[in-house]
Structure formats: C-alpha cells, structure tokens
C-alpha cells in the first residue's frame, strides 16, 4: 500500500470551484443541530460549538479546508466541555454524530468543488455519501449506548474504557 499521494490530476482546467452547495448547506445545518443538542445540556459547550459552527460555515463558504478543520475542532471542544460539565450521554452522542457528519459534508463539498465544480451533477453521489456516513455514526452510537446501558448497572466504566482502547489499537493496526 503506497502512502504517497500523487499530484491531483483532476484539478486542472477552468471550472467553477465553489464548494458544492447541497453538501455545504447540509454541513451548516448539521453543525447547527449539534450546537442545539449541546445547548440542551451545557451552555458553555453550546457556546464553543456555536463558534465552531460559525467557523465551519465560513470555511465551507469560501472553500477553505483548514478553516473547516478548525471549526470542527471547536465543535469537539464544545463536546468535551459539555462532557466535563456533566452532560447526559444521549444529547452528547447525537451532537457527536452531527459534528462528524457536518465536518464530512463540508470536506466533501470543498473537495467536490475543487475537482468536479460546484455546478456539476453530484446530487445522487452526495446523498449516498451522506447516508453512509450517517449510518456509520448511528451504528457506532448505538453500539456505544448499548454498552453504556449494559454496564450502567454497577460494572466499572474501566471495562468499557479498556474495550475502547483495544478497539483503537486494532483500528490503528488496520491502517
């Protein structure tokens, strides 16, 4: 498996390189939902996530990947803040899935704009992609919540944590 990424051969010619509008709007909406979810449990976290959503919107509006990353990190900061202030897990899980989806859609919008142009026909692809990412989010959130519900009856959270670290190591070994 090669890891070197060659020069992008698709980015040439004169096309409209604005990010794809559908994914871009989706990203902004999802970032807003994540903020709203956090607002249910923690004002501080929601404030951070709101800043993140604004930054992400700016990034996706101007097609700047770095700004999108920065906005997403702020959203993660919001999640962590909410968790630290003792939020209940349910809204936090929904917010996490929405935040990841927002980042993914923003990144997709920018990448599509760069490579095929904002006005190309991409609608079907975008919906398939968003549905896939959403499904993965829901599935992993469900697994996590199931574990949580099962262990909540007195089992130490350490078991969950160790399980998780095992999973991370396995995943890292995959790459």
């Amino acid at each position, binding site marked *: 498996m090669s890891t070197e*990424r060659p020069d992008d051969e698709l980015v040439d010619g004169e096309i409209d390189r604005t990010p794809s509008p559908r994914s871009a709007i989706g990203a902004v909406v999802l970032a807003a939902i994540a903020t709203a979810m956090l607002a249910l449990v923690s004002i501080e976290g929601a404030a951070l996530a709101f800043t993140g959503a604004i930054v992400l919107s700016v990034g996706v509006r101007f097609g700047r990947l770095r700004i999108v990353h920065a906005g997403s990190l702020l959203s993660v900061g919001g999640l962590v803040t*909410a968790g630290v202030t003792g939020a209940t897990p349910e809204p936090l899980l929904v917010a996490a899935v929405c935040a990841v989806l927002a980042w993914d859609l923003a990144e997709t919008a920018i990448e599509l704009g760069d490579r*095929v142009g904002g006005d*190309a026909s991409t609608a079907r692809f975008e919906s398939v992609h968003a549905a896939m990412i959403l499904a993965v989010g829901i599935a*992993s959130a469900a697994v996590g919540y199931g574990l949580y519900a099962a262990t909540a009856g007195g089992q130490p959270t350490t078991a*969950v944590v160790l399980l998780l670290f095992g999973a991370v190591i396995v995943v*890292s070994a995959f790459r």
Partner: protein
Amino acid sequence: MRAFDTNRWVGLNGVILLVVGIGIAIRAPALVLVGVVGVGYAAFAAFGDAPEPTLEIDRTLSEDAPDPGDEVDVSLTVRNVGETWLSDMRIVDGVPPGLEATGRPARMAAALAPGEAATVEYTVTAVRGEHTWKDVRIVTRNPSGSRERYVERAVETMVRCIPTFEAGSDLPLRGLTTQYSGRVVTDVGGSGVEFHSTREYRAGDPVKRIDWNRRARTGELSTLELREERAATVVLLVDSREEAYVARNTAGQNAVERSVDAAGQLFTALVGNGDRVGLGAMSPSDCWIAPGAGTAHGVRLREQLGSHQAFASTPSDGKFYWPLWFNRIRRRLRRDAQVVFLTPLSDQTAARTARRLDAHGHLVTIVSPNETGDTSIGSRFARLERELQLMRLRRAGIRVVDWGEEPLRVAIAAAERRWSR
C-alpha cells in the same frame, strides 16, 4: 494505478484519545461514549480499499462535423459493469484542449451500484480543426474516502470542424509571376489592358496595337506596349509556432486562428483569379501543399486549413527548429513563388524569416494580425516592439498589412493606399 491514502481522516485517532482520556480522567461516561462514536468512524475509515472500477464508457455527440461556432452536445455515460459497488467516483471527461465545455462542466461525481449508469451532459462550442477527445479520468474512493485510486479510460471520439472560408479579400500581389496569363499586372510589355510604353514598329506587330495618333502626328509607325497580365505563384505561409499563439484577451480569437481565417479568405480569392496557390506552416508539425490551381486543389487547401494540426487553435506539440525548417521551406519554394506570410510578428524570428525569404528573391507580403493591446505596461511594450519591427520590415521593402480589429479587406485597402504612394 495503485491506490493511495487521502489522509482524510488523519487526526481522528488523536481526537478520540483526547476525548476518551479526558472522559477517564474526570470519570465522565458521556465523553467515553463520544469516543465510541469516534472509534466507529476510525474503523469505517480503515475499512476497504479504493475499488478498481470495471466500467463501460460511452460518449455520443449530437453532431460530429459541425460548422465553427456551432454548439455540440456531448453526453458521456459511465456504466458499472463490475461486481463491486462504486460508492464514490469522480469522473472528468477529456475535453479536447481546443474545445471548452460551456455552461455545465464536463465532470461529475457518481455512486454506482453494479449495473447502474450515470450520464453527464455538456456542451462544447465547435472550433475549426480536428479535435480528438482525451482519456476519461476517473477517481474512485472507498466508502469513507480514506483511500483513493486514479484510473484513465480511453474512449475514441473525434469531431471535425471545417469552415467554409468566405472569399473576397483580394490581396494585391507583387510583380513576381509565372509565364501563365492571369490577373497580376507586370512590368513586362506585351498584350494587356494598361499602357506600358511605346516602341518602334517591328514587322509582324498586330495592327491593333499600332499607335495611330502618333502615326498621324509624325508619320512614324510605332507600337503600343501594354502591361502583360500574368498569373502568380503564391505560397501562403502561416506562422503557428507556440510564440504565435498570442491574443489580446482570452475571449477572442488568437493570432493563429485569425491568420488561418485570413489564409482561407486569401486563397479563395487567389484560386478564383487563376493564381497558383500553395500552403505552408511555420510550425513544429510539418505542413506543406505545393502550389497548384483548380477546384480540386482548392478543396485540398480548404481541408488542410480546416483540419491540419499545424493550424489548430492550440499550439502543436514538439520543438520548432528554425534552421531546419527554413532550409526545408527554401527547397520547397519554387524560384518564381512569392510568399504571403501570415504572422502576428510576436518575436524576431518571424521578421527574420520574412527578410531572409525576401532576400532569396521570393517577394514577401506580410499579413500581420495585430494582437497587442495597451492594457498593461508589458502589452504596451510588446506593441511598441511590434511597431518597430513593422517599420524595419517596411524599410527593407517588404509589404506589410497591419491587420487590427477591422475586417481583412479594410486592412488590405488601407495598406494598398500606402503601397501605391
């Protein structure tokens, strides 16, 4: 081509560890759960490689022999004939460099289940010449987009766009002619229309040409000499080196396109006048049609002008070696051939070529599309440089038609006034 990492999800593991770490430190199970979501995505990102697509690609054109300026609708259909899901594909059609997709781009993103097809439709505006589509470029990704594969697929499509050149720009030729009768007025006395001189009567001169007025005045017999009209051999030489592809702005035609248009107009008029017309290009790709006359020859010239690579609207590949080219063209030019050189005079080489050819006895007329502007200091400098070159060429006795934005025949008429002074 092999697949490679896109680094799309890089940093996710770090974020997971951070979130989970904080969650453990402060004993917040909610944060650990957020970490689980992250792990789910990390596993998803590690899952699967970018698929090698098995595709059936089909490209159809609404018209494959359009006139210049016509809009051609192109439709590219990509069908997934393999077994694998292609959940993430970017497809870029290889539109020929001379044509540009107008309106919607010739690109799409698609997600294709086995057996499914996607179509992208776009429009190109036909430009004179022969255009071949290049490979379709495709990028596939795995579902998470963490791995990517780049492939190219060739689909043969060609469009030929040969213009009908309008006739009517009658360029006055110079006095280098063949022995055949034609339209070019020469300095040779004989039979013709225009007065040339008178000379002493010699037995056998036609009675019609005896100067009877003079006979009445002086009693001497003398013969009128009239300017003979002959046909010329003209070689139209188009400068289509890379340097000649200059344009005032990106929207309009470039100098080579204008030169080819002019050559088309000129040859139609010349062939109509019975002159022998040849065609050559000052270009890396060799192009030569020896002078000839007649309808079939006219058709050949038109085909060549319309479709040869040397006259395309984008520069031909390859390197241009002036000495080699010049020797070749010198051998090809017959002694009695005069040259109409179509060049924007964008550098010294064009002017040098004109002077050399003129020195070798092929009277040269330059038709020079002016593509210099005055929008920036650089373009103003280029304009001055070109004007200086025009001046030097004129001083060397070479006729120059400086062709700005007006129609060619107006430019020729203006130049003609200067020549007759």
